[in-house]
């Protein structure tokens, strides 16, 4: 099986990085917000808004990208016999890490995917964020080296593994029952932004289709932005990093060709230039991702292949995104939120407590 999986090879992961880059560029030029062709945390935040979990009216849209990423991975896992219902490895810890990661990432304004897209668009604040992300992952790696573990997962009833893809299908059904009405802020039970980032989106089916392809390829290749840095720090392996770097180069090239590149700190799309909190928030997010074992994108793919621990992390991100807007911790394009700094520090402290209390002796 290993020999047959082209996507597990070096060429395969680079190919997938290029494909995700092209997909992100296409989505951005089809209407998604600037340097946000695809952003897992931002789009889970918009989804939380669409469902009314928070009421920040500029970030409410049931993003089909999230649904597509889950379903694409589900299809790949079923097709290649990798779908396996599993879970039970410290679920409440994984949920909490998802909440913390989302709150912290929304101080920076982006998950690792968007950090790379922002840098490829010339946004130097993203460089600060990525250094923070790598630093947070580096801290997490130190705990893994000392025996940190959230414990073993078990095989679960088959239906458990199907629940997360099923939730994705239900969200899709909700959209078709209550599609966007031009100029209206609500359609049935769903909220829609009439202005701001939530109102900027590629056509629904294009977003869904591209995300399904990306989800499929990412499941096959195990693409993970957190793993890209972690494997360098932990094992000195650059395999996953090559995929992430290919994504960066593809988007950079696309932006240079199509005029999406603007170098600098100020006036970047949906970004603020607060260096200290761009760094510290992504450090907290990176620490949380590493303790949870995957970036938010990879958590969606794992959830799609039956891993309910990853699904719980993803639902933690959804809840954390809602908290971020309800509690005014999320940043705006001008500055960090009223309580963004406090939330970042509290999240960091909780990550340290989780890390120290899950070191297993003799592991």
């Amino acid at each position, binding site marked *: 099986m290993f020999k047959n999986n082209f996507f597990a090879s070096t060429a395969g992961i680079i190919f997938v990085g290029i494909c995700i880059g092209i997909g992100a560029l296409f989505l951005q030029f089809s209407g998604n917000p600037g340097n946000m062709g695809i952003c897992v945390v931002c789009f889970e935040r918009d989804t939380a808004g669409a469902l009314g979990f928070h009421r920040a009216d500029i970030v409410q849209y049931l993003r089909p990208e999230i649904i597509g990423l889950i379903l694409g991975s589900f299809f790949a896992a079923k097709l290649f016999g990798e779908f396996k219902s599993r879970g039970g490895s410290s679920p409440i810890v994984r949920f909490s890490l998802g909440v913390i990661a989302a709150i912290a990432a929304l101080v920076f304004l982006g998950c690792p995917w968007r950090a790379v897209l922002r840098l490829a668009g010339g946004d130097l604040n993203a460089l600060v964020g990525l250094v923070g992300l790598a630093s947070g992952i580096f801290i997490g790696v130190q705990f893994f080296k000392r025996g940190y*573990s959230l414990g073993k997962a*078990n095989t679960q009833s088959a239906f458990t593994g199907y629940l997360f893809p099923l939730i994705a299908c239900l969200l899709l059904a909700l959209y078709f029952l209550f599609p966007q009405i031009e100029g209206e802020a609500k359609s049935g039970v769903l909220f829609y932004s009439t202005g701001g980032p939530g109102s900027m989106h590629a056509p629904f089916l294009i977003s869904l289709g591209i995300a399904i392809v990306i989800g499929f390829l990412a499941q096959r290749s195990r693409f*993970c932005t957190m*793993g890209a840095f*972690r494997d360098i720090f*932990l094992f000195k392996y650059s395999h996953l990093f090559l995929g992430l770097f290919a994504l960066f180069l593809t988007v950079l090239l696309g932006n240079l060709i199509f005029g999406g590149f603007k170098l600098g700190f100020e006036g970047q799309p949906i970004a603020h230039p607060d260096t200290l909190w761009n760094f510290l928030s992504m450090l907290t997010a990176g620490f949380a991702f590493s303790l949870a074992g995957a970036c938010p994108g990879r958590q969606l793919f*794992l959830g799609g292949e039956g891993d309910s621990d990853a699904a719980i992390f993803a639902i933690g991100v959804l809840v954390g995104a809602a908290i971020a807007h309800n509690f005014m911790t999320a940043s705006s394009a001008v500055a960090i939120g009223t309580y963004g700094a406090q939330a970042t520090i509290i999240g960091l402290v909780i990550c340290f407590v989780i890390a120290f209390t899950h070191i297993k002796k003799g592991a």
Partner: protein
Amino acid sequence: MNPIIIDATGLSCPEPLLRVHSYLLEPHNSLTVYVDNVASNENIARAARKHGWSVKVTEIDPSNPSNEYKNAMFKLELTK
């Protein structure tokens, strides 16, 4: 050198490879690893080959009651 057996079933990334990795850097001549997912199988096989080990992968049936490592899907036999 005694053969070493590592049960990495139930663990998620990066723990299966982390448990194996220190052995890969040492001159052990035989290492047997049980994993329960394809990604861990790929990761360990890739790392072992990188460090000059030969890798033999056997698929095992996780539902077979005689499977002594609960839920294991792959047995990796690493030799150097």
